[in-house]
């Protein structure tokens, strides 16, 4: 007795390293659902409007999505650790005002101004991280607080003034280049690069795997000898850095440093993450799913506009999609337990 090969109940063959894993229908739906939803939405709008599937329009959809897209990358990292970040939009607005004011009013070299604006984002991210790890406050409360702090600092510092006439370096990522007849914004290229980079880190580095593990079972991560506080601090700081980069994209897209930028972008980024199939309970999800989620929101906004539906219906559709996405996630989780 005591034969350990009883473990092999479900698979009689010998252990091998590679080999396909059995996939449940729910898991498959959770994986491919977002992409399917995106393709269906695109097919629908293409059938209703001739202008939808043109290069110029699709390029516009992506360009309109690039700020929320980059914010949503940071949001994905934090949600994977079972956290949430309400402060991302406010941090982004602060970064934008910092870089625009330094460059325009203080005459700081534009490149240095950009660097300081981006670093402001990273510093706020680090503040979130310190509050979540050292003082062990729930991320929801921490980022609700820093949302208000960043918002207030933005308005005090900018004196409620939108900063115009920013130097060319700050709007570089709003410029376009042509591929055939389609104009593509540099900022969208940067967004795709950042998605690719984050995908690589999450999938192929120990840090990335630890991000999933800590959202999954923090106790197991601690017992494995991993410094959870350092890990979370790095995650929140990296997210802040991404918000700082989003500041630059926002300034580039609008051409101004706007203290009122990004006020609903925190919810928009969470929506994109959830639509992309990442679980709000942490430990499960994909950053490329978030890219799909961002595009779903962008396609609905653009498509409904094209076919002449009032913008309030876009909000309605987004709400329904979010609830659908979370429902699918719940079913997938229940199936696995």
């Amino acid at each position, binding site marked *: *007795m*005591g*034969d*350990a*090969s*009883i*473990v*092999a*109940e479900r*698979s*009689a*063959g*010998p*252990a*091998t*390293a*590679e*080999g*396909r*894993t*059995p996939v449940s229908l729910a898991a498959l739906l959770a994986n491919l659902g977002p992409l399917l939803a995106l393709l269906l939405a695109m097919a629908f709008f293409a059938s209703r409007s001739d202008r939808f599937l043109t290069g110029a329009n699709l390029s516009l959809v992506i360009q309109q999505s690039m700020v929320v897209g980059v914010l949503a990358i940071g949001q994905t990292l934090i949600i994977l650790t079972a956290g949430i970040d309400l402060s991302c939009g406010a941090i982004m607005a602060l970064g934008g005002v910092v870089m625009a004011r330094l460059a325009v009013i203080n005459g700081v070299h534009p490149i240095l101004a950009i660097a300081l604006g981006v670093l402001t984002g990273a510093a706020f991210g680090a503040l979130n991280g310190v509050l979540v790890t050292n003082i062990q406050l729930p991320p929801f409360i921490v980022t609700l607080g820093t949302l208000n702090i960043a918002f207030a600092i933005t308005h005090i510092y900018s004196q409620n003034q939108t900063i115009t006439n920013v130097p060319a370096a700050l709007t570089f990522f709003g410029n376009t280049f042509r591929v055939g007849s389609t104009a593509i914004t540099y900022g969208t290229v940067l967004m795709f690069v950042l998605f690719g980079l984050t995908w*690589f880190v999450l999938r*192929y*580095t*120990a*840090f990335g*795997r*630890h991000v*999933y*593990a800590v959202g*999954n*079972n923090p*106790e*197991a*991560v601690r*017992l*494995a*000898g*991993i410094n959870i506080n350092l890990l979370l601090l790095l995650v929140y700081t990296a997210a802040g850095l991404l918000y700082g980069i989003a500041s630059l994209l926002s300034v580039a897209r609008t051409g101004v440093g706007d203290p009122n930028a990004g006020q609903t972008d925190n919810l928009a980024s969470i929506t994109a993450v959830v639509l992309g199939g990442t679980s709000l309970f942490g*430990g*499960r999800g994909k950053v490329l799913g978030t890219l799909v989620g961002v595009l779903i929101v962008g396609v609905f906004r653009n498509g409904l506009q094209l076919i002449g539906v009032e913008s309030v219906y876009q909000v309605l559709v987004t709400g329904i999609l979010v609830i659908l996405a979370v429902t699918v996630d719940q079913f997938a989780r229940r199936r*696995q*337990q």
Partner: protein
Amino acid sequence: MSDTTSNPTPVLEARGLVKRYGHVTALDGADFALYPSEILAIIGDNGAGKSTLIKALSGAITPDEGEILLDGQSVRFRGPLDARRHGIETVYQDLAVAPALDIAENIFLGREIRLAGPLGFAFRMLDKRRMRREASDHMRDLNIGIRSMRQAVETLSGGQRQGVAVARAAAFARHVVIMDEPTAALGVKESHMVLGLIRQVRDRGLPVILISHNMPQVFDVADRVHIQRLGKRVAVVEPRNFKMSDAVAIMTGAMAGEAISRG
């Protein structure tokens, strides 16, 4: 003790451990010895100092007095990580795995292998292929027949998950594997399977310390049983020539320990 005459130096030994928490003395001069290639179970009533002893041996606490020796050398563990660095691995009752990660990633959690060359150095890229291959070897060593190391741990049964935890401990332990109530969260059949794994680990040459409340399991699998009472080791018995009811009697104080362990 009767059963140590033929044995060499203990792999892990403790002499006169004392640990006090305020007015409570959890360990009151406790001794302990684990010999090569044996399964040593620790039993004791609640408050006997069982878990304090294990915490001291796995580095989770530092005893106030007494000495711990690893392979005859005096050691002081500065924490669980330090004990791990000394080759002592622990398997916990609550299945300390990350469910969404695959088997290979769980076995190497916190000890990942990076690719050799620039990809690993500059981009910190993991050698997933090698991790899966080695994970597969470790699982096969214990006769755990799971087809793919890419399978997420959450798709496994409770027993199989504990199998992953045992494989991880066995893979990295150089001296001792501590199993802290490894079957507490499992059903009868799965517990039976994990007991099989414990034997496999011993048969591969690693001594095992088993903490369990389950007397039949202890008497089924252990080579020797350390009985802890009131912060001390009161007896060490061999299940093959000792009655379970007598062990329980010593454990509860109904029977004196020292006299019997000699007999």
